């Protein structure tokens, strides 16, 4: 989408100059009113102050939209002073009005520079800008102009858990929860669960109110600000929790990964009979649940809603159990690795003439086979070093008052 912004510049210049002319007129009115009453300060008509403010405000908005930075900077300072004047924080004395009139000249010069490309008297403009800035130095200066920039998604994958409960009046703000869910879905892998617990009976439902809530799981390289941004319009019209969940290794897709990597290693795996039995049982239950859900679906009416939810809950449980069973196939007790050390210790102590005993604790702990495969070598190395350098020959041990046999303990 490329739109040439230059086509709007002419209109912007014209209306800005017009706005400045109005501003000048109104400022002169203010000053005249003060002079007529012979007063130093003016009891200003709020509508006049508003008109003056609006001119500067529009110029600031337009110039930042069309990219005239010099105009933006000056208009911003002027606008914040006029805002203060409108709110009664700054009194429009004759001195102030004179300075504001000079500011109009500066802004006009800046706009003409933007239009023609010719430099104005920058020194004079700067000095007036400084005077404007110092006009109420007791007032904290307004925040610098910032242009909102949406950060692109960062590299790290986050797992977000979002609870979104709109208040009943959400539809009255013109916001649509569906739109918000759709935006979240565009960000990454999104799982949404509706919460109907606040839904009243059919006879009490008011179609203009929002009774539903949602639990959303969102996975992807998504920074928190992006999610906040999506909810920014409704944050006061709902209860909202956004939590980062620790990444789980048991995400459903890891089953496929597990199977794929087992295949890739082309090794074989010995699986205990109880594990296979558990797997078959879980699959049996899954088939039963599936049949039940098909039955509900083939003859669906709203009376069956609670049965449908019960079925889905059961499906969730089956899926989770199946996932755990499948994952556990690849889990092996650590004794698998420890036992390899036994042989090494035996061979080595014979060769060196040392007496040693390995003691294992927690060797029944199960961990993933791929991890065990990687653990074996470092463990071997550690145990070999302990035996070689940590355990003395039997005669030395006896002389030092130690038992003849040394112990190496491995704890899981």
């Amino acid at each position: 989408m490329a739109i040439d912004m230059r086509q709007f510049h002419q209109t912007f210049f014209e209306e800005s100059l017009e706005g400045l002319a109005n501003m000048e007129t109104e400022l002169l009115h203010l000053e005249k009113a003060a002079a007529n009453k012979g007063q130093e300060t003016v009891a200003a008509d709020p509508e006049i102050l508003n008109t003056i403010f609006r001119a500067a405000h529009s110029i600031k908005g337009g110039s930042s939209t069309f990219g005239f930075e010099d105009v933006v900077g000056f208009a911003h300072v002027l606008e914040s002073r006029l805002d203060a004047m409108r709110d009664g924080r700054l009194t429009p004395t004759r001195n102030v009005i004179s300075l504001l009139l000079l500011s109009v000249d500066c802004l006009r010069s800046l706009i003409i520079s933007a239009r023609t490309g010719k430099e104005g008297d920058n020194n004079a403009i700067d000095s007036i800008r400084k005077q404007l800035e110092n006009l109420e130095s007791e007032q904290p200066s307004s925040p610098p102009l910032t242009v909102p920039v949406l950060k692109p998604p960062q590299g790290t994958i986050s797992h977000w858990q979002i609870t979104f409960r709109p208040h009943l009046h959400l539809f009255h703000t013109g916001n649509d929860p569906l739109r918000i869910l759709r935006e979240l879905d565009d960000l990454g892998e999104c799982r949404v669960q509706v919460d109907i617990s606040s839904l009243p009976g059919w006879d009490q439902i008011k179609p203009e109110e929002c009774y539903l809530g949602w639990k959303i799981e969102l996975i992807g390289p998504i920074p928190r600000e992006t999610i906040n941004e999506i909810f920014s319009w409704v944050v006061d019209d709902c209860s909202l929790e956004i939590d980062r969940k620790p990444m789980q290794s048991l995400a459903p897709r890891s089953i496929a990964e597990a199977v794929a990597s087992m295949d890739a290693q082309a090794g074989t795996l010995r699986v205990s009979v109880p594990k296979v039995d558990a797997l078959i049982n879980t699959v049996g239950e899954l088939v039963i649940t599936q049949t039940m859900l098909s039955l509900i679906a083939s003859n669906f009416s709203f009376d069956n809603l609670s049965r449908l939810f019960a079925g889905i809950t059961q499906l969730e449980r089956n899926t989770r159990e199946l996932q755990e069973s499948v994952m556990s196939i690849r889990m092996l007790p650590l004794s698998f690795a420890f036992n390899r050390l036994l042989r090494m210790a035996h061979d080595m102590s014979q060769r060196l003439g040392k007496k040693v005993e390995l003691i294992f604790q927690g060797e029944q702990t199960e961990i993933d086979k791929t991890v065990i495969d990687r653990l074996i070598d470092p463990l071997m190395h550690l145990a070999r070093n302990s035996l070689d350098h940590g355990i003395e020959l039997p005669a030395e041990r006896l002389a030092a008052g130690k038992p003849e046999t040394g112990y190496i303990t491995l704890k899981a």
Partner: protein
Amino acid sequence: MATILTVDDTASMRQMISFTLNSVGHEVIQASDGKEALKLLQGKKVDLVIADINMPNMDGITLVKSLREQAEYKFIPILVLTTESQEAKRQQGKVAGATGWIVKPFNPEQLLTIVNKVLG
């Protein structure tokens, strides 16, 4: 394609908004303040209203309030234009019933992204 009402006392902003929305096929109705907007609408169906806050005769906040009181405009998205520093205005807009806000300055791409978002 949608019918969109844009209300702004600044002609260049109005032109930029209409041109951008026209370029993707939306129909745009333009009004220079809240009063004119109400006069132009009179129950006519629009899909979205984009209104500036600071306007003579009738400002954006008052416009949002009176639109929300009419059945035809009770649920349509209404966006107000604010600047980064106008947190208070934004809240006033929300209280009056605005759907959300567009922060000035914005470029045509940003405008279209937000418009697509609310038109769904």
